[in-house]
């Protein structure tokens, strides 16, 4: 609703309907049933006169309301605002507008826009205020509704576009990945047939193959994630998962002259997880460890990934390194978003890793007072038959 021009210096406002409501029957009706509430408040905020529209906003008869303080209908939390409104009015000659929540007779809260101006009431010269009350609850509701729908739409569009993008990406990437996998396997077979006993070459090819398969899984997963908005949880063998991650980082470890050691019992209970996500967490932790030791000259460089069953229902996985360790500041801030000690890091790896682990019902933390280097540890609930 457009805001009403309201100025006491305007002649119509000065000799308006409030002053002489009964002078003309038409004017009375105009006053009483105007689309907005009109109200005359005396200098201490009591209602001197109120039209029907205004009175019905408060849920009472106009005559009953006369003489009552308007603040009685102002919601408790907004009483302060109303007092401020009056103070501002007393201090200036212009109209003052304030949004207030009022509580009607039935206890329903409505938001009104109260526009008031100081006026002279009558021959005695007592000060009073004219106010217009406009119910803006509806507008507020629709504004809220519009913003809710808009955000839903934005979300849906984003998901849709992302889903489509991921689908195309999956198709485009699986072509070359398919080529890599077939070629690696072919090369391995030919190498084997020719009796070449080249373990180095065999390992190179096996790793390339595993990496391509992993990339395809990530793509596949991304696609599933974006088109369904969910994750793909399956029951899987954690020790196998760790072995798989070890295959993927072994080459990096060797390049950095880091010894990679696994301490993972074969008989760990199964976990019900999104394998790709957990693999990403482990990869992230292991890469952090390898990078932390990069600057180290000489001395032992080792990453140990270990897993243990704790109690009946939890498994703890630790990634420990022999790097410089964590100082108090790093220890405190390492999980905060955008905190990084790497020159080209985003500072999101650990934040995302933690939220992944927490979404799986586990915890990710740094072990305090690790003896050498840093140890990061996460827990996962063991999969119980019938619980998933």
């Amino acid at each position: 609703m457009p805001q009403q021009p309201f100025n006491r210096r305007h002649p119509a406002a000065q000799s308006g309907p409030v002053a002489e409501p009964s002078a003309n029957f038409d004017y009375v009706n105009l006053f009483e049933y105007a689309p907005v509430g009109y109200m005359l408040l005396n200098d201490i905020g009591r209602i001197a006169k109120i039209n029907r529209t205004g009175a019905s906003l408060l849920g009472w008869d106009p005559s009953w309301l006369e003489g009552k303080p308007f603040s009685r209908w102002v919601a408790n939390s907004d009483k302060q605002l109303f007092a401020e409104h009056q103070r501002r009015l007393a201090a200036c000659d212009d109209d003052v507008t304030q949004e207030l929540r009022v509580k009607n007779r039935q206890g329903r809260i409505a938001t009104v826009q109260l526009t008031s101006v100081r006026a002279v009431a009558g021959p005695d010269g007592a000060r009073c205020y004219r106010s217009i009350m406009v119910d803006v609850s509806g507008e507020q509701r629709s504004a809220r509704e519009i913003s809710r729908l808009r955000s839903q739409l934005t979300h849906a569009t984003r998901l849709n576009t992302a889903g489509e993008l991921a689908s195309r990406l999956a198709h485009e990437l699986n072509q070359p990945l398919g080529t890599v996998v077939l070629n690696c396997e072919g090369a391995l077979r030919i190498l084997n047939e020719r009796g070449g006993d080249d373990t180095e070459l065999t390992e190179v090819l096996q790793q390339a193959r595993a990496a391509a398969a992993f990339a395809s899984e990530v793509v596949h997963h991304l696609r599933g994630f974006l088109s369904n908005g969910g994750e793909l949880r399956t029951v899987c063998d954690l020790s196998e998962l760790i072995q798989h991650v070890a295959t993927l980082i072994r080459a990096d470890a060797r390049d950095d002259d880091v010894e990679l050691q696994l301490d993972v019992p074969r008989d760990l209970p199964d976990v019900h997880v999104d394998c790709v996500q957990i693999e990403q967490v482990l990869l992230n932790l292991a890469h952090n460890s390898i990078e932390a030791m990069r600057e180290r000259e000489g001395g032992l460089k080792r990453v140990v990934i270990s897993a243990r069953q704790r109690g009946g229902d939890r498994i703890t996985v630790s990634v420990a390194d022999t790097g410089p360790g964590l100082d108090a500041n790093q220890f405190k801030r390492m999980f905060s978003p955008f905190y990084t000690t790497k020159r080209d890091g985003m500072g999101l790896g650990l934040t995302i890793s933690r939220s992944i682990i927490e979404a799986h019902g586990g915890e990710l933390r740094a072990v305090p007072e690790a003896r050498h280097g840093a140890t990061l540890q996460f827990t996962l609930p063991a999969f119980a038959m019938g619980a998933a």
Partner: protein
Amino acid sequence: MAPRPVIHAVDDDRCFREALERTLRTTGHCVQGYSCASAFLEALDPSVPGCLITDLRMPDMNGLELQRTLREREIRLAIVFISGHGDTTQAIAALKSGAIDFLEKPFGEQALLRSVARALEKDSADRRLAGERALVMQRFSNLTRREQQIFALIVSDLPNKEIARQLRISPRTVEHHRERAMLKMQAQSFSELITMSVLCGIREIHLALPQQSPGS
């Protein structure tokens, strides 16, 4: 000796097609690659045994359309479909209309070789069956009308006497036609004659399959 089976590989991605060809060639297969469905259809000699590996998505004709075209031309080539992303609906459609397998990229050699072996096996079984059927049909067409009639009746387990009654001829004459039919069909035994009748569609087989025991 039958010609060596040819594996036809259709994929518009050159690198992938070459990897596919290399894998099959170096595992002792005879491979022919094509960049699109129409090139394959143009070059195909249906009399040569083999199978087809094709991508589901291609620029000129998708895999399912290619499958339909082959069926319309009455070419029964066993097909293995491959796809860049698991499009479940297409995969189901492909398998329903008789594809041997559906491989999702990236797949390993073992999966590929297993599918190809199955496809070639199916092709050779199809061809053997088609050859036998053609032979049987040709022998059947050499029978006289009477012999064909009697052939149809004896394989439906009717005794000579009953056949004689139905055709209003003597049991001896039935016996005579029966011997002629066996001879012309080159059947060594009565059971072989029955097999032939199934092959040329005179008799349908209704097998009473044993009930599966629960849990098996």
